[in-house]
């Protein structure tokens, strides 16, 4: 039976960058991913950087994959991992087809989209905003002729632009009407506040939208009160914080949506219903870390709103308190793929350091840790304000967990 040095779950920017470091140090590595192509969510990304250059996820993924392949990395696609079992001196990775035995595991499973259900959302033609991104940029198939985006945030703004680039017509972006699940996404003040807080980060076209809101920073309520009836336009498409989608209509597929006016508190204005014909609807509820596998293997968690949800506790070299289990990328908090890639590098070096214990690797590891921080500071996309505070919380939690672990060992 083969025992790997490390099994990496997820071939996104974090997993691939880690695999490259491990292979450069000649470790026995296998990378597993359930998607048929390597690259993770990086594949679908396409935005213009502040310097005007395009961030082309297909090309970036290809570069990572080519480097990994040149180091003869074993990458197995179409393989879903559904369990990690902890034995005394190793882990067993359960997949549908077979088991993998390994001394170390890197969980780099990325993020998932929070659902934002509104009536009619199960109709064919309704999809998450990320689904539309992948269909458009990765598969190059049109999601429809004319659609509407429900949910206004940094990701949906970016992807709206991508759909337009691909020649797909969008009616507008609007909020969902309030219900128990979509409370936050339906609150015009909160949405406006989040958008304006990211605006300063990127004086780029990409966040033109945000900077438009930023003008109103001191007077956000006023801005909402006098929000233009025709919306604020981004690349010709209106963004409404004063209109919301109440319901999606159709018998066998999407035929229209019902739009209503909402007050600055998100309350529906009576008799304001309008039916808008569309053949697809994208729902944008935001991202959260996809961390179930860390939970089943026993990693302790901490909740951080800044990082997008429940985070497996880890330190700056990406170790969790469960010895041999590492995490990197969006599972540790929602950030851009550049940050995920640098975190992957750190995790790969940390595992190599654990296995080989060399001063040379240790130096590289320290440099890589510094690089994560530098990349974060320079990021043109931030999903949540306050990422650094969130990161501090997590590392404090790691120190406390380790202290408790030690104390428990002493008692025993």
């Amino acid at each position: 039976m083969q025992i790997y040095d490390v099994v990496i779950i997820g071939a996104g920017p974090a997993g691939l960058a880690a695999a490259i470091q491990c292979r450069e140090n000649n470790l026995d590595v296998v990378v597993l991913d359930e998607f048929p192509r390597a690259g993770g969510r990086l594949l679908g990304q396409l935005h213009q950087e502040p310097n005007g250059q395009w961030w082309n996820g297909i090309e970036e993924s290809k570069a990572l994959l080519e480097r990994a392949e040149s180091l003869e990395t074993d990458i197995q696609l179409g393989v879903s991992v559904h369990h990690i079992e902890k034995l005394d001196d190793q882990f067993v990775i359960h997949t549908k087809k077979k088991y993998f035995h390994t001394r170390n595991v890197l969980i780099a499973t990325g993020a998932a989209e929070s659902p934002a259900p509104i009536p009619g959302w199960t109709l064919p033609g309704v999809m998450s905003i990320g689904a539309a991104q992948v269909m458009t940029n990765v598969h190059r198939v049109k999601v429809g002729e004319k659609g509407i985006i429900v949910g206004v945030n940094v990701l949906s703004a970016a992807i709206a632009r991508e759909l337009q680039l691909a020649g797909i017509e969008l009616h507008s972006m609007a909020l969902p009407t309030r219900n128990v699940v979509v409370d936050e996404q339906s609150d015009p003040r909160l949405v406006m506040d989040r958008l304006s807080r990211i605006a300063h980060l990127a004086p780029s076209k990409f966040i033109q939208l945000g900077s438009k809101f930023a003008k109103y920073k001191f007077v956000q309520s006023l801005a909402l009160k006098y929000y233009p009836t025709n919306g604020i336009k981004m690349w010709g498409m209106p963004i409404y914080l004063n209109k919301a989608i109440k319901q999606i209509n159709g018998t066998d597929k999407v035929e229209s949506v019902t739009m209503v006016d909402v007050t600055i508190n998100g309350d529906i204005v009576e008799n304001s219903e309008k039916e808008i014909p569309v053949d697809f609807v994208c729902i944008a509820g935001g991202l959260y870390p996809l961390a179930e596998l860390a939970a089943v293997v026993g990693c302790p968690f901490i909740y951080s709103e800044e990082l997008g949800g429940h985070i497996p506790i880890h330190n700056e070299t990406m170790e969790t308190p469960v010895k041999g289990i590492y995490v990197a990328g969006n599972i540790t908090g929602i950030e851009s793929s550049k940050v995920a890639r640098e975190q992957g590098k750190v995790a790969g070096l940390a595992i190599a350091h654990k296995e080989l214990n060399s001063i040379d690797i240790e130096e590289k590891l320290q440099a890589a840790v510094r690089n994560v921080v530098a990349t974060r500071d320079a990021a043109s996309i931030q999903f949540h304000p306050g990422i650094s505070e969130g990161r501090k919380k997590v590392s404090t939690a790691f120190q406390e967990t380790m202290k408790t672990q030690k104390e428990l060992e002493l008692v025993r």
Partner: protein
Amino acid sequence: MTNRIVDHPVLGKLEERQKVQFEFDGKTYEGYENDTIASALLAHGIRTLRKHEESGNPRGIYCNIGHCFECRVTVNGETNVRACLTPIKANMIVESGQVQPHPLNPSQEGDIPKTYAEYLEQEGRG
């Protein structure tokens, strides 16, 4: 196929790819190498991949990346395969999910066992 994004201002022209034929609910469709079942069908304007097991309501993709399991279909006899993660292969047989008999509704109970004893009996272990 009109639903393909052939020319893209940043990503460039769609490259020539190998054509692949597969079957969905008894009809033959053509897609391209690297298409998933979901993308190949959507390129033909097909959005409905299954009916809800109980209500019969039509369902299609939601997340397109394997997280929600809304796109489950039967592939070469294997049930609950995610159409958004599964690449099409030549001569693959894909079937949409259908309404299932309801164990608690006498008019549609079919042969689903209602008790553990019935289950054992059906398994030939009664």
